[in-house]
């Protein structure tokens, strides 16, 4: 029994979300079987990968049973019913803890579901558990998690990217076919890139932030991670749409992303290569794969031109004023008064002292660094020079995009300048760590859509490289259309998905545990 399950299960974990949904809908396999297979896979590999902070096995199986019951009763099922998913631990869940990778929220059980969480449940998506992340989504490696780093399934000694590194690692390690991440400066696309999977940052406001524990409110955007462009589009469609609980949510129909992913055609499309991001600065193999991807697009019928976005070079410094400013305010509420950690409350100390001691004990160094940066940038007398100036730069970057999108339909660049770096390499060098988001930050500041799709392995280290495709706000479908075309052409060239080139993770012998 165990052996048979292990065999069948490992097959189930290799399926795409679209395949699983079809198999569940047709009754070929039950949602419970699919869920159990992924829970088994988590047991088998997650001690090495450490993608999850919390696995909700019973709740997942109950949700799967519900899907099976509905199917048996002939009730209509959503396009992703019965498909397992890994949820970034920054989205609130009424039945699971939500830690944001921080000690300050250890053990906190939110009394409510995030809108994204609720939409997933309503659609019959099976939430397996909560994934690891850099504390409060601040970082590019998961090394800032208070619960230890996640590991890149391609090479366990390397980072899986961040901050949604638990989500990217879970998908790349076949622990889940789908995951939710959040992108503030690149936190979906960069981990997707270094794990060799697909990650999409939707247009800001396209997916609800209600229940997303805020890092930087004007930037935070939930989005999908998946192994295929179509799977990402299916999840995008299920999780998105207007939410009256989020004032910044866009009151417009979700762009036709699934249709675009199926269309996968770039003939006649104008593709702009961002001059500022295509010169030096990237690892040799990253640059080589990017150049090949651009040539591929041209061979598929796209018209490629160079486009200058002169203010993109100021994106990183502007981001590191705006995001910390907002975080310094957003994270003020962790004050020990109502929930989460409370330190030093021995009956002799004032509320002020308990607040200070708790924040001292509960926040990690990167979070403290950004709170201090932001507090400084917003201070009276410095506001205009820092926060105010950064907002002006943000406007200029948005105008660069607008001008570029008058010339071309999409812009492309490498997703991140390097492949996955070794765990520990940049922990003492925050500036080096920040550079991982160099190419992704402009789309966060401007709020437009951007996707990362795998475009090969860097020859020098054999690790995945991502291609970033940036589309105008509310033209998310265009990013999917180009991404799917690249994916399809490359898989033909490779004879299968890039991830098939990753070596198998060691599973403990003897079948399921």
């Amino acid at each position, binding site marked *: 029994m165990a052996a048979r399950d292990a065999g069948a299960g490992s097959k189930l974990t290799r399926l795409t979300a679209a395949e699983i949904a079809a198999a569940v809908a047709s009754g070929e396999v039950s949602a419970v079987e699919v869920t159990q297979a992924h829970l088994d896979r988590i047991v088998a590999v997650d001690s090495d990968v450490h993608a999850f902070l919390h696995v909700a096995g019973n709740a997942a199986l109950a949700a799967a049973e519900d899907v099976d019951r509905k199917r048996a009763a002939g009730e209509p099922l959503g396009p992703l019913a019965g498909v397992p998913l890994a949820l970034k631990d920054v989205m609130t869940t009424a039945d699971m803890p939500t830690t944001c990778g921080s000690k300050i929220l250890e053990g906190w059980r939110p*009394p409510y579901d995030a809108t994204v969480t609720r939409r997933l449940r309503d659609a019959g998506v099976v939430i397996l558990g909560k994934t690891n992340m850099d504390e409060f989504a601040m970082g590019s490696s998961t090394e800032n998690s208070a619960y230890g780093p996640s590991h890149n399934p391609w090479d366990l000694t390397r980072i899986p990217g961040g901050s949604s590194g638990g989500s990217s690692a879970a998908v790349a390690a076949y622990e889940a076919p789908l995951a939710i991440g959040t992108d503030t400066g690149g936190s979906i696309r960069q981990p997707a890139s270094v794990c060799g999977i697909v990650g999409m940052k939707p247009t800001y406001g396209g997916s609800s932030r209600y*229940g997303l524990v*805020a890092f930087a409110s004007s930037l935070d955007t939930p989005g999908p991670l998946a192994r295929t462009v179509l799977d990402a589009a299916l999840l995008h469609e299920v999780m998105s749409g207007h939410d009256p609980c989020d004032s*910044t949510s866009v009151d417009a129909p979700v762009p036709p992303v699934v249709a675009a992913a199926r269309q996968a055609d770039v003939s006649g499309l104008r593709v702009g290569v961002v001059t500022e991001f295509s010169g030096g600065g990237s690892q040799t193999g990253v640059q080589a794969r990017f150049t090949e991807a651009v040539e591929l697009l041209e061979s598929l019928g796209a018209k490629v031109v160079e486009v200058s976005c002169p203010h993109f070079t100021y994106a990183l410094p502007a981001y590191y004023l705006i995001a910390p400013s907002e975080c*310094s305010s957003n994270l003020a509420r962790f004050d020990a008064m109502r929930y989460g950690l409370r330190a030093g409350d021995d009956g002799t100390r004032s509320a002020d002292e308990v607040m200070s001691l708790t924040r001292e004990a509960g926040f990690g160094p990167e979070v403290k660094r950004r709170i201090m940066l932001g507090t400084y940038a*917003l*201070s009276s007398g410095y506001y205009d020079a820092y926060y105010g100036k950064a907002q002006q730069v943000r406007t200029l970057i948005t105008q660069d995009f607008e001008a570029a999108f008058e010339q071309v339909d999409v812009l492309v660049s490498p997703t991140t300048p390097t492949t996955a770096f070794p765990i520990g390499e940049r922990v003492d060098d925050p500036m080096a760590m920040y550079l991982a988001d160099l190419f992704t930050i402009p789309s966060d500041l401007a709020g437009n859509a951007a996707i990362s799709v795998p475009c090969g392995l860097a020859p020098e280290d054999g690790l995945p490289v991502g291609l970033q495709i940036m589309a105008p706000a509310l033209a998310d479908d265009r990013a999917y259309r180009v991404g799917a075309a690249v994916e399809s052409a490359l898989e033909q060239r490779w004879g299968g998905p890039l991830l098939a080139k990753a070596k198998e993770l060691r599973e403990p012998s003897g079948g399921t545990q």
Partner: protein
Amino acid sequence: MTDLAQLVPYDEALSRYEPVIGIETHVELGTTTKMFCGCPTTFGLEPNSAVCPVCLGLPGSLPVANRAAIEYTIRIGLALNCSIATWCRFARKNYFYPDMPKDFQISQYDEPLCTDGWLDVVVGGRTVRVGIERVHLEEDTGKSLHMGGATGRIHGAEYSLVDYNRAGIPLVEVVTKPVAGTGALAPEAARAYVTELRDLLRALGVSDVRMEEGSLRSDVNVSLAPNGAAEWGTRTETKNVNSLRSVERAVRFEIERQAAVLDAGQKVVQETRHFHEDHGTTTAGRSKEEAQDYRYFPEPDLVPVAPDRDWVEQIRASLPELPAARRARLQAEWGLSGLEMTQLQNAGALDLIGATVGAGASAADARKWWMGELARHANVAGTDLAELPITPAEVARVSALVQAGTINDKLARQVLEGVLAGEGDPDAVVAARGLAIVSDDAALTEAVDAAIAANPDIAAKIRDGKTAAVGALVGAVMKATRGRADASRASALILDRLG
């Protein structure tokens, strides 16, 4: 500086210094739900029962602005003759305090919804135009209860409890421009302004404006400058002055205190001060040096507010008759002088008289009863007129009974007393106390005869034609009937018998 010995007597202070006042008033709006979530705003609920993830500031929750609160604020702005912003944003005011769930308050900073208006108030018989700097919208904080100490303040308390029911209730702040030139009338002007603002807000139907429940609270700014000085002095801000009387007292106290500071050659410290109801004094709070840097920045969780012009005009068109216009109309209708009108207003009698007139009494009668006998009762009881246990309809009925000759003014006072004592409505009191005038000849003749018999000297004078003496016999009849006799009928009967 709170030593009462260090105060300069008020008149003396005013002989050397010119006060400038300014008032910031916080008003809790009477919307059904809170500013950024759907929780009820009901006062007096079980602590922490009207809360949700949003008003508790739980991680991940987001605010959504209450359209009704924005409409109410525009209504206030229009009534205060302000300009309404075409586009403005909320801002975050950052500071740590346990009763503030997010450790920042969503407020408005440099982009208030309403700016640059005015409100006229009458002080000492002349009209003072109080400039309105701004009217902005924000959320209220929770309420801390400091337990185990003697004072109820955080200092000396053993522990504190926080009730978040109030957190997130929409709060409007109305800020005046500095008001100069009122001289010795500054305390009265401050009170008149808050009174006028309260009446205006009540007329607009945007708040229940109950100062005792804290739904209207004022901070009072006062500065003094030597007479004829080119610049104003340093101001203090006395926080949470929670009654009309306290507004007046706080200004008066600060004038006396600051005069003493300046007389001593010292500088007034720019600081917030606390008002103490029991002594009518203020004590120092936070000074400017300790003032917090609130690190204001535009609230990224909310979209800008851009009130459509048509909507603003609709709101303007729907404004009710405002207190000043109503007063002018009533003054004309009732034929009163400006001073008489001010007296009615100060006594809080306008609405009561209006309602009494509405119930059928003449304006003169309504005014006579409310400002006379009933004002005396209120004064004795130490309450406001409106708190007396008698309705305008009942007062109108008393007036009608007098008009009908059923009772006279003297009996009417007894009827009012009976109603106030809870003996029932005016008719019931008249019946129970037997107060109806006796004009029936059969009943009166007996008393008349007894009076004539008891006063033979007076009777003789009348018989001699000195009819002016009849009054003395009528008095005796009245005494015998405990005031119930119809005096003119009694007089006629006496003259009839002795003529």
